[in-house]
């Protein structure tokens, strides 16, 4: 035998080995039936069943005697009842009733005859139809029209997006208040923490309402072009929409360095997906998935009362981005 023959034989063998092996030549009959006849198993099942019943009654008893705060006992009793029932059923299924291995022949799924007949029957239904294209076109028109009629009511599910989102409750001069409606004074915002503010008289649940206010040393603030510190950040007070421009969670974390020399600079962080914004630089995204900065709200300080007031509207549209969400000063 030449080495060539050996190689061919090896390749053939490998190909064959890679494919599924043939089914066993001689069919084995795996059928068997065994009856356990175990009186101990039957006794065990009976005991388990009675215990399950008692646990169930125990549940009812606890429920009726101590309604209310018995969650653990109720759970134990009901869970225990089912556990005992499960044990009884499984013991019965494995050690009491006949144990049988049966063989069922799989039904044939393919029916050659009917497969031929079905398309024929369908085709015969079109006998006498001479103007197929006319009917098909007309049916298309009917389908489009009726389909459109059926989906149109879905339009009343919600208003059109544009006007609503751009209607914001902030105007020049609107007082900034806390969630109980008390005015926030400039001196209520210390460095190192943030204060949540709302427009006076507006709904707290409006996404355009909440702002975070932080105080930074004015020398560290570098706002985007067109936002002067006097008009946007008096005394180093900065306000941004509290709603993350990524997915609409509330910006609830403020990272403030306790040792400026080594730690990163202050940042507003969203706890949902950790978008991180730099308040000193117009809330530019410095980490995380947000695609645009938080919109800034210009502030003014009432010279007489020191109350905070809005000095205009946001620098961009608030909330998660969508087609027309303008990006503002980015």
């Amino acid at each position, binding site marked *: 035998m030449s080495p060539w023959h050996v190689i061919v034989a090896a390749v053939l063998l490998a190909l064959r080995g890679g494919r599924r092996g043939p089914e066993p030549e001689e069919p084995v009959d795996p059928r068997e039936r065994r009856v356990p006849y175990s009186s101990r198993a039957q006794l065990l099942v009976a005991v388990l069943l009675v215990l399950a019943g008692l646990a169930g009654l125990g549940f009812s008893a606890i429920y009726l005697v101590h309604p209310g705060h018995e969650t653990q006992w109720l759970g134990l009793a009901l869970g225990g009842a089912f556990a005992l029932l*499960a044990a009884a059923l499984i013991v019965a299924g494995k050690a009491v009733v006949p144990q049988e291995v049966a063989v069922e022949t*799989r039904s044939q799924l393919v029916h050659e005859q009917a497969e031929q007949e079905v398309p024929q029957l369908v085709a015969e239904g079109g006998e006498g139809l001479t103007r197929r294209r006319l009917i098909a076109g007309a049916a298309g028109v009917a389908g489009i029209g009726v389909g459109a009629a059926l989906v149109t009511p879905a339009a009343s599910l919600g208003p059109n997006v544009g006007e609503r989102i751009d209607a914001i409750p902030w105007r020049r001069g609107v007082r900034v208040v806390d969630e109980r409606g008390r005015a926030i004074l400039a001196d209520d915002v210390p460095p190192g923490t943030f204060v949540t503010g709302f427009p006076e008289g507006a709904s707290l649940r409006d996404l355009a309402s909440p702002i975070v206010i932080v105080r930074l040393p004015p020398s560290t603030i570098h706002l985007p072009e067109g936002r002067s510190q006097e008009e946007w950040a008096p005394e180093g007070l900065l306000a941004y929409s509290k709603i993350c421009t990524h997915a609409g*969670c509330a910006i609830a974390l403020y990272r403030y360095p306790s040792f400026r020399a080594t730690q990163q600079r202050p940042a507003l962080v969203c706890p949902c997906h950790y978008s991180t914004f730099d308040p000193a630089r117009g809330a530019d995204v410095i980490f995380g998935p947000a695609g645009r900065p938080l919109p800034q709200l210009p502030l003014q300080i009432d010279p007489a009362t020191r109350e905070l007031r809005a000095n205009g509207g946001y620098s961009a549209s608030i909330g998660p981005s969508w087609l*027309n969400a303008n990006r503002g000063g980015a």
Partner: protein
Amino acid sequence: MTPEPGRDTVRWIDERAGASPALKAALRYVFPEHWSFMLGEIALYAFLVLVGTGTFLAFFFESSTAETTYHGSYAPLAGERMSLAYASTLRLSQDVPGGLLLRQTHHWAALVFIAAIVAHLLRVFFTAAFRKPRDITWAVGVTLLMLAVLEGFAGYSMPDDLLSGMGLAIAYGVAMSLPVVGGNAAFLIWGGEYPGTHDFTTRLLTLHVFILPAAIGLLIAVHLAAVIRTHHTQFRGPGHTERNVVGTPTWPAYALRSLGLLSATAAVLFLLGGLVQINPIWQWGPYEPYLATNGAQPDWFLGWLIGGLRLMPPLEIHFWGLTWVPNPFWGGAAFPLVVFGVLYAIPWLDRRLTRDWARHELLDRRLTRDWARHELLDRPRDNPQRTALGMAFFA
């Protein structure tokens, strides 16, 4: 002649439904034995527990964002303003006898339901049980997983506690991020800008207690019907062929054991519901859009989505002054679409990769394009390529 017990009953049924051959076939229906074939059954039984406990909860839950002041027995929240939805969930948990047990059991059952579906899916994948003629069963199963995840999300969004509010805010962000249509799509779903009108809570309730459970129930029926029509697959073994099923008939042993599994599932769920606290909403507090908390995590089955949202770099597509693809789209919409797309395509991809042509057609494949029918399972080791690709994908 000895009287046969039950004969009259069967006659009664037969005279009206002619069902005795079907009953006989059902009693003798053969189930191949392997522990991993139980995973789907566990999902089914968890669904039964979900329906049962959920019905109880629905009798107490009020789906409304109307404001109320809390006067229940949970002292730390006494006098707080909150939505009726949150207040009624608190009452259900703190004041209704047995309410907390059933609510916690419901939540645990939801987690186990999805976990069992995922485990079942992995079993079916790694043993290649999804191959023809079960590719339809597979597609229905993948749809069930998708609906189950939606149903779970809708469920924990309902109590209007801080956690559910944060989840909904993110869902709103993802809806807004759909390219071009996002803004209007989100407004249609929420009935306006987030947090939405009263209509939205009604929609959430309808979705969670009616539309999704009905769809899941219906698809479970289709799934089971498809299983019964083609029978279970089986592993290779003595006497096991592509043309037969070897195993235990329904009656009596299999029925008893399966009912045992139902009881065991219920036992575990009620024990978890009674003994292991889950989602203590009274500690999260009521939700307001301006509130969020650090360390809040969704239920485990949404972890992969929030992970996708977090990991995504800040990539948005802007031009002509418009935001064409806002960022959450990538992690929150495109990512799950791709994952489910691949899941749906698995039977097709697998045939391509394994060149699994019907054997008698091997010489003539260009003419027939027929795929082999499989009744025997592969062990994971039988097809290392499939196993390896699967491990990479699911990981």
